[in-house]
């Protein structure tokens, strides 16, 4: 009796295990999604509004522009992934992991971008009357695509026998891990890596070059959903396996694409965003040595950047410098790094005996002490060294080997402006910091840092001189920040105490640096770079939101900690820590790994 019942229920159960959010026949859902995507695609060639007042000019029929291009891209990608999921020959490589999850995510991204555009038109121009029929077509078509995509069966079977709508919704985003790819010839793999970095550079420059806030919001929506879709499709893992195979090629490709960035910029204002991102990212990476590897929570890190910048400003030959000395740049870098190193050791030696929260509070205090000291060394409250809150202005541009970084130069037929020059100089320092980070991480010293972070008592019992190594991490972090500061002083012309607050609207400051490390992923190289790019780019592009910026930040960080505690880029260890790893017989909870009692 029991056997028959179980047999009769098996077939529907198998079907139910992959039940979609909306009950549609799978074929109908696929066709619906494909047709919806095609119509959305076509709608971008229609006019969406009647006036060019809305940024991007969406008025021309037959010529998509601005936000329409984003919808077009989203629709095209949706269509490609529907085809890949349907098994169209030649496209299967697109989704080695999840098949329907990426379709849903791309449909969501297209939907979000399109509806955002339509609503933004209505709000900005005052009423739905401003929409042309093309706008309605796009809105309806993207909605149809989304509904059809919700009707696709989930890639991973439900754990729950009869999942409710929310569980089915969550499940539809999950994707299985792709199996190992068949090996390709070496040149093809290298070509794929190069193409991936080329694409990354293109997406990044597109974001920097967006002219209007509306366009940037649409871009962020599409990129966020698109990036998730690509990772669900398993392409990230495929790429990661290639990059780990060709490490040197990857590093070279990364720096070539970073190097190529200024050559894509015709406008030096956008190049300045790139330069500032690079300074911010480099300092964040230095902080990652302290926080990510050694686990020392430093809330006053920006002070070290300040020490470097002030030192460089004092020896830069600026007419306002109280020293009046002009050293060559290499000497200024050494001075800045050296001063930061000394400052780091002086602060670190007494404070590193503290743990956790106490260290955070003390470093926060020291960060503020630095700023206020710089403010008071103005001749009235103390000796005149830094001109107080006026800072040191008129820092001259650098002249390296007869190459004045302040003037535009034409290289390879492209005119590189002042900020492009500094971008290239800063890139050199980024390379140094990345190298220092990677090499120290993968060594006896790096292992000792991580051991101290994990359990200091046990680390000491293993023969690690915890205090000395913590001081080393602190001093190394300080030196790297000081080095970056020497370039920052020249880029910003002026060094003032107000640039080195704990928190303010413009990065880099201590709070944003820490946020960049945590957002990007602690203990990784690419994490802080990506985190810093996002944290700089978003406020720079969405200036109308500046009043709510910190609020949005807080919300974003809370959401991230809830849904992706390891940060955007997961450290290999963190990946194993927070997620299922296929390492069976893992004890539930923390059996035996408690830190109580010695």
């Amino acid at each position, binding site marked *: 009796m029991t056997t028959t019942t179980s047999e009769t229920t098996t077939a529907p159960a198998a079907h139910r295990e992959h039940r979609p959010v909306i009950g549609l026949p799978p074929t109908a859902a696929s066709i619906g999604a494909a047709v919806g995507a095609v119509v959305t695609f076509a709608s971008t060639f229609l006019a969406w509004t009647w006036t060019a007042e809305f940024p991007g000019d969406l008025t021309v029929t037959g010529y998509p522009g601005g936000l329409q291009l984003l919808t077009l891209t989203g629709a095209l990608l949706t269509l490609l992934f529907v085809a890949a999921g349907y098994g169209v020959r030649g496209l299967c490589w697109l989704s080695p992991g999840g098949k329907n999850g990426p379709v849903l995510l791309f449909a969501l991204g297209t939907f979000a971008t399109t509806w955002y555009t339509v609503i933004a038109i209505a709000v900005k121009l005052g009423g739905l009357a401003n929409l042309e029929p093309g706008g309605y077509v796009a809105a309806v078509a993207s909605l149809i695509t989304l509904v059809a995509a919700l009707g696709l069966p989930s890639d991973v079977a439900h754990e729950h026998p009869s999942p409710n709508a929310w569980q089915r919704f969550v499940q539809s985003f999950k994707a299985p891990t792709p199996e190992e790819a068949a090996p390709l010839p070496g040149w093809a793999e290298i070509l794929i890596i190069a193409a991936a970095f080329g694409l990354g550079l293109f997406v990044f420059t597109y974001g920097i070059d967006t002219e209007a806030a509306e366009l940037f919001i649409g871009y962020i929506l599409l990129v966020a959903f698109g990036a998730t879709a690509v990772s669900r499709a398993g392409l990230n893992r495929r790429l990661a396996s290639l990059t780990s195979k060709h490490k040197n090629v990857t590093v070279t490709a990364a720096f070539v694409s970073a190097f190529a960035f200024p050559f894509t910029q015709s406008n030096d204002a956008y190049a300045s965003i790139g330069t500032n991102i690079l300074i911010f990212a480099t300092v964040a990476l230095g902080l990652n040595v302290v926080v990510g590897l050694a686990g020392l929570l430093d809330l006053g890190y920006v002070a070290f950047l300040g020490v470097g910048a002030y030192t460089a400003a004092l020896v830069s030959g600026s007419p306002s410098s109280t020293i009046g000395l002009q050293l060559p740049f290499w000497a200024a870098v050494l001075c800045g790094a050296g001063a930061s190193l000394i400052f780091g050791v002086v602060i670190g030696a007494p404070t590193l005996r503290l743990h956790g929260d106490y260290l955070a509070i003390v470093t926060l205090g020291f960060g503020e002490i630095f700023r206020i000291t710089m403010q008071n060394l103005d001749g009235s409250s103390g000796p005149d060294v830094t001109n107080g809150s006026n800072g040191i202005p008129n820092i001259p541009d650098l002249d390296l080997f007869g190459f004045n970084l302040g003037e535009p130069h034409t290289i390879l037929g492209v005119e590189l402006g002042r900020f492009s020059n500094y971008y290239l100089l800063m890139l050199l320092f980024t390379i140094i910091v990345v*190298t220092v980070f990677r*090499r120290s991480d993968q060594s006896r010293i790096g*292992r000792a840092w991580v051991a101290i972070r994990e359990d200091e008592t046990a680390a000491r019992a293993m*023969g690690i001189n915890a205090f000395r190594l913590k001081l080393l991490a602190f001093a190394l972090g300080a030196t790297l920040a000081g080095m970056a500061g020497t370039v920052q002083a020249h880029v910003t012309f002026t060094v003032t105490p107000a640039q080195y607050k704990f928190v303010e609207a413009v990065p880099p400051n201590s709070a944003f640096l820490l946020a960049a490390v945590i957002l990007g992923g602690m203990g990784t190289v690419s994490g802080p770079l990506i985190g810093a790019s996002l944290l700089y780019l978003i406020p720079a592009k969405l200036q109308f939101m500046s009043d709510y910026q910190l609020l949005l930040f807080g919300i974003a960080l809370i959401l991230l900690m809830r849904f992706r505690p390891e940060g955007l880029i997961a450290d290999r260890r963190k990946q194993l820590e927070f997620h299922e790893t296929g390492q069976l017989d893992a004890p539930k909870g923390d059996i035996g790994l408690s830190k109580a009692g010695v």
Partner: protein
Amino acid sequence: MTTDIEPTGAGSPKAAAGTAVPVLQATGVTKKFGGLTAVQNVDLQVNTGEIVGLIGPNGAGKTTFFNCLTGLYVPTDGTVTYKGTVLPHQSHLVTKAGIARTFQNIRLFANMTVLENVLVGRHTRTKEGLWSALLRGPGFKKAEKESEERAMELLEFTGLAAKRDHLARNLPYGEQRKLEIARALASDPGLLLLDEPTAGMNPQETRTTQDLVFAIRDQGIAVLVIEHDMRFIFNLCDRVAVLVQGEKLVEGTAEVVQADERVVAAYLGTPYEGAPGAEEVSEVEAAEAHSTVGKEGDTK
């Protein structure tokens, strides 16, 4: 730049078995926490090639005594010498001198892999600093390779080689205990201190651990072990010391300790007036020798 892997082990097993040279000598170790005297005037000697047990009821001060030996606590009074030199009160220097330990509550580096845990144990026996790591000279590569080879040897020895890339936190309990031992051995110690190595293990795992400890002794490493499992202790140890309320009650071979009335009283209490007589006591004593006393209520 140079690697300097000093063999601080107590020489070859043969030499160890032949002569009884003291490896560890604790004299008059006292530790007071405010008004509470956790350890009082304890003397203990461990010779080369010896396995010495340290037993006592919960709260007797065994772990405190261990912490005094390894420099985690600064003893209020008394000295600890290792091979004739007085040990400093800093645990990394103690490890460098040649004493390695495990912890009562497993304290692995939970988010590092098995291999990395053992490599951290090699820290004191390698010398490459930050410059060497940044410049990556040939010396660095050679040292890293040697460290890894030694670590793999130890993982083979403890039977964990297949799990080298697993996170320590994902190992089952018994293997976490073994990994702690492998990590301690990585510092090439002359004396290994084991704090309740079989706590929470089933009889089979306990037997494996026993074999492991014998194998460690055969490498010429002296072992001092705290344990509540009496069968384990009496099978394993050449000598057993009993600590009760911070004071050393008795020290001697398994037979001597088992026969001592005070030990029984410390574990089971003194007979109250008018109840069990000598007969019952001897019964309990016999039972104790064949059971795993103290296992219950031991997991803090």
